């Protein structure tokens, strides 16, 4: 005999936008893991950063890596604020590990996370297919470019700011849009996401 259980009643009351404990902890650890990956990247692959130093706007092409945390968090957790939360936490970890410094890192994380978040919001946290992921990457890339152009590239001639924006947008779509989506698909197949809608539905 099946009976209606108290937990089922409790669940019925909960709106699907509420974060569960597992959402919070996994989102936190995603932010942390991406922060560690940034650290590993800058420890072993700084050569690429040197290349972009010669022509600074090309740094935009490289920037997408920083944006993966927000998009991945949004795709996996599927709750309001997940993209912002993961991106800010990844930024905090990279300053803990000495990859970047200062409160502005958190501000940048907030701006970039917001760029991805707005796209997920636009689809009311209901759609998480490749198109949405690419758009979220684009949103994060544009947010990054706007933020950096105001905060750091402010003295650049307008042309260069536009180039930077273009590069960041491309990088956002390709790196921060595509890679997290591929990661989500791969993760779903490993069974690691069994507590999440992202691991149970194949809405691609």
């Amino acid at each position, binding site marked *: *005999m*099946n*009976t209606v*259980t*108290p*937990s*089922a009643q*409790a*669940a*019925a009351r*909960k709106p*699907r936008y509420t974060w*569960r404990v*597992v959402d919070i902890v996994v989102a936190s650890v995603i932010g942390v893991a991406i922060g560690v990956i940034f650290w590993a990247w800058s420890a072993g692959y700084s050569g690429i950063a040197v290349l972009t130093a010669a022509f600074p706007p090309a740094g935009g092409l490289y920037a997408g890596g920083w944006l993966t945390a927000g998009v991945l968090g949004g795709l996996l957790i599927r709750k309001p604020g997940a993209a912002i939360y993961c991106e800010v936490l990844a930024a905090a970890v990279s300053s803990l590990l000495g990859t970047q410094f200062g409160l502005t890192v958190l501000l940048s994380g907030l701006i970039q996370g917001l760029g991805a978040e707005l796209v997920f919001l636009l689809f009311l946290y209901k759609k998480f297919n490749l198109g949405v992921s690419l758009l979220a990457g684009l949103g994060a890339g544009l947010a990054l470019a706007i933020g950096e152009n105001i905060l750091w590239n402010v003295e650049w001639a307008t042309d260069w700011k536009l180039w930077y924006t273009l590069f960041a947008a491309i990088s956002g779509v390709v790196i921060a849009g595509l890679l997290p989506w591929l990661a989500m698909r*791969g993760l779903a*197949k*490993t*069974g*690691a996401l*069994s*507590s999440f*809608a992202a*691991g*149970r539905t194949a809405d691609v």
Partner: protein
Amino acid sequence: MATIQSTTAERGHPAAVTAEGYGWRHAGRKDPALSDVSFRIEPGERVLLLGASGAGKSTLLHAIAGVLGDDGEGDEAGSLAVDGMHPVQSRGRTGLVLQDPESQVVMARVGDEVAFGAENMALPRDEIWSRVRESLGDVGLEVPLDHATTALSGGQKQRLALASVLAMRPGVLLLDEPTANLDPDGVLEVRDAVVGVLERTGATLIVVEHRVAVWADVVDRVIVLAASGGVLADGPPADVLNAAGTRERLIEAGVWVPGYTPRLRTSLPTGGGNGSDGGHGTPGTDLLRAADLSVARTRRAGPVVNKVSLELAAGEALSITGPNGAGKSTLALTLAGLLTPAGGKLEAAPELRRGAAGTVHKWKSAELVTRIGTVFQEPEHQFLTHRVIDELEFGPRRVARLPEDEVRRRVDAIAERLRLTKLLQANPFTLSGGEKRRLSVATMLATSPDILVLDEPTFGQDANTWAEMVSLLGGLIADGHAVVSVTHDGDFTAALGGNVLRVADGTAQLQAPATSGRAA
């Protein structure tokens, strides 16, 4: 301030746990993880919960702890109650300790960690700290409150986890293989802490554990879950473990029943004959020699073991033993050519070198994988693809770059030998623990290395997967492979034979062979 030793009554009373036709199906799965389970556990009873892997033991403990999730995560059937209440409502009355010591520490400091549960129960500050001191005393963990949780050993971490749930004064302790990841000293340390706690609190105990001997004297009741659902047996340990029908079924399910040694398959099909595994040197041929070797994880960390001298020959087993943190794995990984020696010499004999230039750790990937294979403790660390067949083909095709028909032949033979043929299309990450372990050995064997290095190959295995691993490695040794294992497992070392190298206090001592029979 409250007295340190409070009475049982002050500590919260032992709780009863009742299940009536209880079941749970995870969302998105066809079959229930648990079905039709009924029992009544009286307050203060001490229960050992057994069953084959996949019978739902962990699911049941999680259910009693009230952490299975809401109906988005699965469907509940029947009823389950702690002192008459649904488990979700009685969190805090139940105290759950999990298997992995690393994944259940929340806070950075010991005192804060123990306080965490009491804080979540919204207790007053003074009460929290008095409970923190009392709980740490109960488990005998005598470290300062601001001690870093990362600085604890595995056994200490598990005692900390126990203290952390005790601070909530639970009526039921739920232990999910609490000693599976520990070395033998750690196992006893944790078991004794639990016994002490039960004597002081009188709490109900439900423990899941393959290694029955550890808990057989502690518990007064054994419940066996059937893999097909329901309860297979329920009664006093002596009755359940010795009853003719049940005992066989427990052995079949891979439970380490006291007084039973897992049967090894002695006549394994050997790879040498059909060439699936390449031709290996005649037993006794020297392969690798270490002289005054010092090993270190990173150059900056400095050496952890010094002055290691040993010789490794084809057809030989070498077990590296010693306490946790002594540097066993670091030594093994250095022998495997994955870490740069910090000092001394590590030389490959001509029979192993076969034209590979330079020292072992400088070998190219294709040279390394055809000479030395390393199986890590966590199989998932070595999975590279999304299908079992791709995993098996990766080494021969992409690294060793063998001709396509040779790749096919080897992969087929190895899949057959390690019983992976039916799983070829599955995702490696979704296999069972035993299957993952077999696959990680198989991926290494696919490129036919002369030496196989394994880190804790029998950790957390049930009796069936244990026997399987020992049989497999015995077969490889008979084929002329050299097998180096880092292990705590005395039964394993004895079964495999060969030399034992004990690593402790920065040095390594070669000890008498584990058994006389096998070494050539």
